[in-house]
């Protein structure tokens, strides 16, 4: 009898344990307890064409960080799931960016990143949103990317409205600091998506604080800038705001020198003047350019040096990082953080986790002050704007004071005096 009782208890206990286990499996979030599954990330980027100076670096950064992350065990809340990235080159062409997005979604990605070209991001993000796949924009600045009310679109970098505000604020500050007056201000931008968006904002905002005597846009195919520079000289523009793509940034800098145009300063809005490739192409002619953007290698953030060294170890000792590498580090941080919190790659749950993002510098690989928190449109409202000056071939932060590593040279030296 006793033996029989023990045996009965054992059966009951086993049934109870089984029931508890089944209940736990049923009530736990999807993914918990699963052994290393895969999260498919689609990356729609321009490795060729005009946007390639940004795209190649972002792609390098993404591979470095995710390879290391996967090797260290992947997403803990998903049982060590690895992030499998699938890259497609959109060639800096919006139509190809769109077809890439369609293809990646068809291939089953649960989240997308892109595009390092606002024109392309506009198309790809819309397609992702329609398919209810979260789209994390690592480095595009056209305000319209997030201003269209697309529920699945998140931008980690600042938009042009934020950056242009920073450039105008910097211009006022530097003039006050140096006791100089800019009485005739000019605006010269490319007609490509983000530079044109910047133009519209500057056209509205700069006249509120400066006397604008010249404002112009030029097509992407513009190859000879001598006439444009002659016009700027004729009008006596003494402070020039610019937003270009990398190729026209180079051609314009050469034209300014060739035409011996000497304003108080050139203030550029990131885009074409931000990549290091601009410095590599123009060499000493890029010296003293003032660029308002998102990042400079000399920001006082400890993790920057660690990431720079890792990039050198992987891509060669000559490899130097710029904003494109680091903005991707931020975007990957946002993705990993959201996946950890969601515990699943279910797109809807991942979107909800992304909406609740509140990252600070130092978490994961987030290196650009002050971190990331999205507003209701999906725009990061936590990131600060930094202005740097190109000095000795390097980006050196000059504004705001909390980031400044050197005092800016202003007015910039004349071409003949360099």
């Amino acid at each position, binding site marked *: 009898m006793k033996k029989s009782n023990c045996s009965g208890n054992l059966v009951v206990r086993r049934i109870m344990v089984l029931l508890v286990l089944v209940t736990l499996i049923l009530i736990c979030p999807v993914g918990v307890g699963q052994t290393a599954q895969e999260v498919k990330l689609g990356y729609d980027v321009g490795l*060729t064409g005009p946007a390639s100076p940004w795209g190649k670096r972002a792609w390098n950064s993404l591979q470095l960080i995710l390879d290391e992350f996967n090797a260290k065990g992947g997403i803990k809340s998903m049982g060590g799931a690895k992030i499998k990235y699938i890259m497609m080159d959109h060639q800096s062409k919006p139509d190809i960016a769109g077809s890439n997005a369609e293809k990646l979604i068809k291939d089953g990605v649960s989240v997308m990143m892109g595009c390092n070209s606002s024109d392309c991001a506009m198309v790809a993000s819309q397609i992702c949103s329609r398919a209810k796949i979260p789209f994390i924009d690592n480095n595009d600045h056209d305000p319209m990317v997030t201003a269209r009310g697309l529920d699945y679109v998140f931008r980690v970098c600042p938009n042009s409205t934020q950056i242009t505000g920073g450039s105008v604020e910097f211009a006022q500050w530097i003039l006050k600091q140096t006791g100089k007056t800019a009485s005739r201000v000019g605006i010269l931008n490319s007609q490509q998506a983000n530079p044109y968006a910047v133009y519209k904002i500057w056209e509205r905002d700069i006249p509120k604080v400066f006397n604008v005597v010249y404002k112009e846009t030029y097509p992407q195919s513009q190859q*000879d800038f001598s006439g444009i520079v002659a016009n700027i000289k*004729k009008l006596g523009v003494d402070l020039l705001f610019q937003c270009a793509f990398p190729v026209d940034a180079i051609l314009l800098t050469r034209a300014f020198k060739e035409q*011996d145009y000497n304003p108080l300063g050139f203030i550029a809005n990131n885009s074409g003047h931000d990549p290091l*490739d601009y410095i590599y192409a123009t060499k000493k002619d890029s010296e003293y350019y003032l660029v308002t953007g998102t990042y400079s290698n000399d920001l006082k953030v400890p993790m920057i040096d660690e990431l720079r060294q890792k990039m050198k170890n992987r891509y060669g000792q000559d490899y130097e990082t710029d904003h494109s590498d680091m903005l991707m580090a931020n975007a990957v941080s946002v993705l990993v953080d959201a996946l950890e919190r969601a515990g699943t790659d279910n797109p809807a749950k991942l979107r909800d986790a992304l909406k609740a993002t509140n990252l600070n510098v130092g978490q994961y690989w987030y290196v650009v002050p002050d971190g990331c928190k999205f507003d209701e449109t999906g725009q990061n409202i936590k990131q600060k704007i930094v202005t740097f000056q190109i000095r000795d071939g390097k980006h050196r932060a000059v504004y705001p004071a909390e980031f400044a590593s050197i005092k800016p040279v202003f007015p910039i030296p004349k071409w003949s005096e360099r």
Partner: protein
Amino acid sequence: MSYFDVVLQGLISGILMGFIYALVAGGFTMILGVMNVVNFAHGNFVMVGMYIAYFLGIKMGVDPFASIGVAIPIMVVLGATVYLLTIRPILGQPQYAQMMVTLGVLIIIENAIIWIFGGEFRSLNTSYTTAAIALGNTKVSVARLLAAGAAVVILSALFLFLHRTDLGRAVRACADEPESAQSVGIDLNKVFVIAFILGSILAGMAGCIVMPFQVCCPSSGVDAVVKAFIIVVVGGLGSIPGALVGGLLVGITESVASVLSSPASALVIVFALLIVVVAWRPSGIFSRAR
């Protein structure tokens, strides 16, 4: 700087660019005139010339103008290969078939360049890249001046070749009256391959001479071929003097319109010029009877 100086600056820049455009269009119009083939890959031959100059400049410090010496044999091989493998088999086929084939060549060359050099832009800094000569209040770019001078020399040599040599006369004869040329013993196939190679050489040389002041990337050829097409339509199909006049007209119009109105409207004005010329003389200013 006065208003006159600005217009003068536009005019000078336009003339210099016009000569360079004419060189690009010269090769394009030769192939079109002799073989009646619209070579959409022509701009990519220019781009290949740019990469040759870039490669030699970066790796060996060769001046872009000196790199023409290396570019010519490369363009001969490239031109002959493209002609024999892709153009020759479709000669006499409907024009849309030829267009599709040359578009295919364009894509192949673009991707080959991406494979070899990568997709990013490339530029060269020579000692004269940003040098300028003062002309009153205006500045004349030394790099563009040298390129324009080289373009004039090359086009003059081509003109002399076409008018003073038997082979050149044969090329012209094939362009004007292919049937009659064949009836007097001119080998059309031989002339076609020569014309295609010559066109390719001109494009390659144009690529080399613009490299001191231009930036190249695998998609650089598209702009070049669009402009060449406009110039050839304006100047006259198959005419070298037409390419020269068309190049100057487009260069000056584009540049002066850019300073008088806006850079964006310059393109509109160039296309307006195209419409006016086509309406006035559908075969172009220097049209040749076919």
